């Protein structure tokens, strides 16, 4: 009887140790992202709009364009992308300028800039709530809004965030608290997986990273493990994005008129 009692305690101790290995505050596993809610056509005046929520982080993006003319310093041979980032409260500061720049460069690489030269497409991003992984959420929202507006794109961009905990574990899609307490985190943007008619027997080409923004210090190996985890998550997320954006296609009349 006494021995049985000891065994029960020992078992519980092992279970406790195992459960403490990957212990996230909201009970997710290391590889689990928060549930995503993506809605297109949220606004009436904007040519394209989308709202993207990852857990509690929520961002609304609106697209106006293509409008005539480019700004002074921009190349008139190509279309110009303009990004305006609106924070939840307070004035726009350096952080917002950085987000605008990263978003602009990311979207420039996915838009077909030669289709409408000498035009400007404006993307406005409004932060509704920030609970971690804000920039990836905004990139996803902006891509969905561009699809809603009918701006010609090469492919979609899918963004996720990976963070590196003190213990050496890599977590996917951290919340704000996790972002603030981890050693380092990285925002990664991958092109969405293409579904093209490939000749039989050919392998899917290795897709590159469109954007990578890191905060904090991490070892090179850790970075590569983040990229690996991120790529897997992005492949799954891009399927979700394709399915959700497909549902509403073809019904809306053009608002640009």
């Amino acid at each position, binding site marked *: 009887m006494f021995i049985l009692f000891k065994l029960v305690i020992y078992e519980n101790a092992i279970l406790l140790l195992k459960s403490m290995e990957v212990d996230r505050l909201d009970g997710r596993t290391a590889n689990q992202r928060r*549930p995503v809610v993506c809605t297109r056509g949220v*606004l009436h005046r904007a040519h394209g*709009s989308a709202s993207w929520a990852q857990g*509690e982080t929520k961002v609304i993006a609106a697209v106006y364009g293509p409008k005539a003319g480019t700004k002074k310093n921009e190349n008139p041979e190509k279309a110009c992308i303009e990004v305006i980032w*609106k924070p939840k409260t307070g004035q726009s500061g350096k952080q917002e300028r950085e987000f605008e720049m990263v978003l602009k460069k990311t979207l420039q690489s996915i838009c077909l800039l030669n289709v409408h030269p000498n035009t400007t497409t404006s993307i406005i991003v*409004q932060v509704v709530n920030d609970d971690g992984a804000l920039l990836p959420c905004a990139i996803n929202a902006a891509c969905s809004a561009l699809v809603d507006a009918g701006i010609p794109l090469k492919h979609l961009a899918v963004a996720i965030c990976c963070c590196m905990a003190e213990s050496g574990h890599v977590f996917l899609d951290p919340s704000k608290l996790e972002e603030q307490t981890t050693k380092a985190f990285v925002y990664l943007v991958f092109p969405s997986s293409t579904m093209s008619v490939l000749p039989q027997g050919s392998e899917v080409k290795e897709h590159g990273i469109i954007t990578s923004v890191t905060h904090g210090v991490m070892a090179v190996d850790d970075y590569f493990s983040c990229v690996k985890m991120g790529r897997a998550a992005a492949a*799954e997320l891009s399927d979700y994005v394709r399915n959700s954006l497909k549902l509403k296609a073809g019904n809306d009349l053009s608002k640009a008129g």
Partner: protein
Amino acid sequence: MEQRLANSFTMTVNDKQFIETALVSDIRVDGRRPFDYRNLTIRFGSEDGSSEVQLGQTQVIAFVTGQLVPPYRDRPNEGTFAIFTEFSPMADPSFEPGRPGDSAIELGRIVDRGLRESRAVDTESLCVVAGKLVWSIRIDLHIIDNGGNLVDAANIAALAALSTFRRPECTFGGEDGQELIVHPPDVMEPLPLIIHHFPVAVTFGFIGEENIVVIDPTYHEEAVMGGALTATLNTNGDVCAIQKAGGDGVLQSVIMQCLRIASVKAGDITSKIKNAVESYNTQRSLKKIKRHNPSSAASKEESRQVNPETKSTQQSCDINSSASTLSIGSPEEQSETLKDEVKLKHKKRKKSTSNANSS
């Protein structure tokens, strides 16, 4: 210059005449009668003090935040509040980013006058240490979709956000009892603001030569109208503010009629806001009950220390959903002993791995 012209919204002569002639027969373009409001929806964000109002096609988001600051010298025992209005470029192609334009400032001023001068928000309760520290409430209004009648929608959003805002509880403690401690929300329940009444803004537009009155104009009607009148009233029958900035001259009798209609509408809107706030508060208290041990406050502290990891929610990975409503966290389980906690975690891990496998 060309780009600005390309951005602005111009109405054709045909559109204008159509709106005016339809109004002669009491018909509005969207099918409403002249004194009907559009559909009003009030939603709240996940945090306290954030609201999202949709009035027809107009959408406004409001955020309320608070900060401890020293008070103004002439009012040492009153808190302050300030309203910041942002006409986001996403609302209308003619809205420029950067400094707020005239209409943004006017809107901010109307909402501010309605709240401040009618003393709707109790500022004396915001005082913490007279002359040294008071709460400064900041209301950010973001107009995200311009479907017309921004003033009314922004006012409702501000009222809804103020009603659900909670400020942290402050007590004196420390060694000498003089140190101010601001308690985070999970230690001590934050307090709501004291709002005496709801000043509701109702906007009227005057269209055409006979100055036909319409309530809650859409942005097409705003482009056609010759003048506008905004009346801010509450359900007690007080007129908190009236704004008629220029435009066509209107008879006194018409203005009196507008005020009478406005008081009826203010009653409707106030009850809608109160219902929405009530259902939000019920949901919020349900969430709180499930999180804490319902036996006593003392064991609240204990259970918080013993089980810091049980503030967890079960979430499933929604792969194929494109729902348009926000999902609220599912119920959480509290456990008393360590053994149960271990079993719980094991169950949750199993569930989440099976979710990942099934996706």
